[in-house]
């Protein structure tokens, strides 16, 4: 017992110290300014916790948005492409067919053949040329129906959602919000949590418009001023600083060091602000095997919009050295005319693919391109897949629906925090006083446990990186009321034992032992409810479940371990063995001593 006590004291102290230390970042965090005022040595330390208590959007103000992506539409587009390709290829290969029809409801394409031979030829061809498609209905008839393989259909859907998420993330980043979170939710939804977003209409407009993709000539190359300053102090030799002012409201302006020679070629001088026909854009480029952030000087006025792009696909060919992949794309008539002019006049130069203001790739123009073109490079299949996804996003017209939106102004959130603090304070005060009146010394001990509980809950929230929400505050208030329950159960038991005439020490021991399973049973069931809530709930409700669950666990710890340690320490001294303040008079008959 004695040796055991030593370890329990150490455990309690360790938990307390960890809890207090983990609360330090919260006290040094300026929630208004959104930055930490921790001293540098703390921030640089790798052991000390850096997480401050996160406030939910309902407390700090901001926007919580759930959008769904119409993945069915993406599927239909894929089928339309398949239908067109089948028609084109059949004509090419002289395979007879009567008609090729899209069945949008069934998500199938039906090919009607005139006879058995052409059906076999057609089947074989489709099997070889379209590995992601297979015959789904109409086996052994002249009108078989083809559809995407289940796995490929699922992949297409998830890729579409992922792609839209990336585009949204890029646009949201342009807003310069603190810690925006953009996560996939379920199969076809994206949840955007944007603390501090003040203009919901503008955010929504920005994330729901279609992606902007452009092809622009590369006129010069260099590095961004910011990048140079982070790497070295001195600007690189042979490079000149130029400035580009972003004309759009939300966009960021840029300053880059661009190759002086290239600048001179197009007549742009030192420290110049770029004329409107040029722009700067960042991108990454593979230089001698290393991915490096580079800045491109682009010709803006000759740009061809990606909206003219009809389709882009990765193609895996054996002609390429190393069995690499290429990306082939097709353009509409208008696009073909403009693209043909641009590429025809600038063979040998580089053409940048600019998605949402960032250069995704900048291949060399090898020959004039009109309706069909292909981008070659030493692409891995994955890279080719990604690039074709980027290209397609210019024509991305998959519908985006707003499913849920919650915007809270900062003032309302601040009010809620203030009210929450007041409710917690008064609740605590009343319970603390009540416990002392009812249980005297033991009540004081339960109060200490209660205060520890508050510290532990806050500490655990910070450590876990969980978020405190308005219902979360309600959960804490509820915990204030319920946390004393475990102690009440123990004290009532102890009182019962005292009444049977046991000594205080024996009563404490029996009381804790007998109450233990009652407490566990009662709390585990509440914990079940909290965990169900955690599993099911979203946003604020999750915050409530988290604080409720933490409150239960921490109240178990304080009641069963912490208060017990205090009693065990007390009973180590012989003098105090016969006294116990628990709010009732008792006569320890077994020892025959009076208090």
């Amino acid at each position, binding site marked *: 017992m004695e040796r055991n006590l030593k370890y329990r004291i150490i455990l309690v102290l360790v938990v307390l110290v960890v809890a207090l230390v983990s609360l330090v970042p919260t006290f040094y965090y300026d929630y208004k300014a959104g930055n930490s005022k921790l001293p540098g040595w703390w921030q640089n330390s790798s052991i000390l916790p850096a997480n401050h208590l996160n406030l939910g959007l309902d407390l700090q103000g901001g926007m919580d948005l759930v959008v769904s992506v119409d993945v069915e539409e993406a599927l239909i587009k894929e089928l339309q492409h398949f239908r067109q390709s089948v028609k084109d290829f059949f004509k090419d290969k002289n395979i007879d067919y009567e008609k090729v029809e899209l069945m949008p409801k069934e998500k199938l394409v039906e090919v009607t053949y005139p006879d058995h031979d052409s059906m076999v030829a057609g089947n074989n061809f489709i099997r070889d040329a379209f590995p992601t498609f297979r015959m789904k209905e109409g086996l052994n008839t002249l009108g078989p129906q083809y559809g995407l393989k289940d796995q490929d259909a699922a992949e297409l859907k998830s890729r579409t959602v992922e792609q839209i998420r990336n585009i949204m993330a890029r646009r949201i980043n342009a807003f310069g919000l603190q810690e925006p979170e953009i996560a996939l939710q379920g199969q076809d939804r994206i949840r955007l949590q944007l603390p501090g977003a003040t203009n919901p209409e503008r955010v929504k407009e920005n994330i729901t418009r279609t992606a902007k993709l452009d092809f622009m000539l590369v006129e010069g190359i260099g590095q961004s001023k910011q990048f140079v300053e982070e790497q070295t102090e001195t600007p690189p030799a042979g490079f000149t600083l130029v400035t580009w002012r972003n004309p759009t409201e939300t966009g960021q302006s840029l300053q880059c060091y661009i190759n002086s020679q290239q600048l001179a070629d197009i007549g742009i001088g030192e420290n110049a602000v770029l004329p409107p026909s040029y722009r700067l854009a960042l991108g990454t480029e593979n230089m001698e095997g290393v991915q490096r952030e580079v800045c491109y000087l682009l010709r803006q006025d000759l740009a061809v919009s990606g909206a003219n792009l009809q389709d882009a696909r990765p193609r895996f060919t054996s002609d390429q050295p190393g069995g690499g992949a290429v990306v082939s794309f097709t353009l509409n008539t208008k696009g073909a005319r403009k693209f043909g002019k641009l590429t025809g006049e600038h063979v040998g130069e580089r053409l940048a693919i600019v998605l949402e203001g960032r250069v995704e790739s900048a291949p060399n123009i090898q020959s004039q391109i009109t309706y069909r073109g292909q981008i070659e490079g030493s692409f891995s299949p994955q890279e080719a897949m990604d690039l074709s996804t980027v290209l397609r996003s210019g024509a991305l017209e998959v519908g985006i629906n707003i499913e849920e939106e*919650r915007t809270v102004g900062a003032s309302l959130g601040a009010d809620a925090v203030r009210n929450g603090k007041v409710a917690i304070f008064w609740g605590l005060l009343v319970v603390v006083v009540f416990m002392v009146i009812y249980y005297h010394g033991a009540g004081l001990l339960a109060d200490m446990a209660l205060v520890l509980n508050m510290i532990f809950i806050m500490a655990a929230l910070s450590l876990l990186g969980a978020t405190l929400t308005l219902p979360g505050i309600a959960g804490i208030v509820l915990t204030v009321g319920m946390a004393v329950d475990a102690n009440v159960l123990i004290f009532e038991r102890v009182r*019962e034992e005292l009444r049977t005439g046991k000594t205080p020490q024996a009563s404490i021991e029996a009381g804790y032992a007998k109450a233990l399973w*009652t407490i566990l049973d009662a709390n585990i069931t509440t914990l079940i409810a909290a965990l*169900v809530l955690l599993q099911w709930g979203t946003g604020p409700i999750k915050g409530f479940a988290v604080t409720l669950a933490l409150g239960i666990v921490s109240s178990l710890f304080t009641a069963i371990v912490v208060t017990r340690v205090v009693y065990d320490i007390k009973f180590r001294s012989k003098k105090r063995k016969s006294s116990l303040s628990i709010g*009732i008079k008792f006569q320890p008959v077994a020892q025959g001593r009076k208090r």
Partner: protein
Amino acid sequence: MEIIKPGTRINFVKFRSIALGVSILVIAVSVISFFKPGPNMGIDFAGGEEMEVEFNDPIEISRLRSAIEALPVGDVKVQKVGEGEDNTYLLRMEELKTSIEEVDKESSEKDSAKGASGKTAAAVKDKLSSTFGDGSYTILKTDYVGPRVGRELRNKGVMAIVAAMGLILVYITLRFEFRYALGAVIALVHDVLITTGAFIVTGREFNLAIIAALLTIVGYSLNDTIVTFDRIRENVRRLRRVEYKEMINISINEVLSRTLLTSTTTFITVMFLFFIGSGVIKDFAFALLVGIVIGTYSSIFVASSFIIWWEGLRAGKRTTATAAADKQKV
């Protein structure tokens, strides 16, 4: 201090028939209220748009109401929030409708969802600016829930409560016995039904936070019930000579002090939440307050009454009244 003196023997068991009658009556009222007046579904479940607007200067609510009602936004509710000094109002609307959607209902569900959120809020803002002047108000909060999400949240909410009860049934069966589990779950259903009824009768709005409150009540009420059951289980061994009903009554009395104490401290803290909080939190606290009272009542009267009734059934079958008590499993 001792509120309940040791050796207190209030004969709760004697009142169980009356309690049964009262419970059935209140549950009946609750169930009827489900149909008429029916639950007041918040936008979380019904879908729609809700905005909280604060005006710089006092305005007439009727002017605000007629301004919003002039918009094609379906059913409109305008409500003052907070004390007399605050010029804050809650506007609740369905979605902005255009004439095309009225005609083609089938295809409109998708289209209306697409832009409804932004458009409704924007339309309301325009209207407020033109009626009360630009900059005379601040939008504190905007909530929009699409019809699809509303449906999902509703189903999931009910699922969550059912799942919680199912898991609890399993846990208590493992730790106690099946009849205890059944008694506890019946008490829970009782509590949830009555709290829901109280919510409907007082015209409060159902939303996500209320589902959370109901689940909390499930957990809380169970706390009380388990403490009582735990004592009954203990006394089955200890008080073999005592008649079953009497034994149950003794058990209830023995834990009464604790039951009342915990309920009191919890009730008081939640009361602060109720008086200080506003909006959703106030309703949330209201549900908890009702739940705490009902939960305490049900753990004394409903759950243990069920055990007695079940025991009576079993004893009746065997036609030996005392045999049952001896065969109690522990």
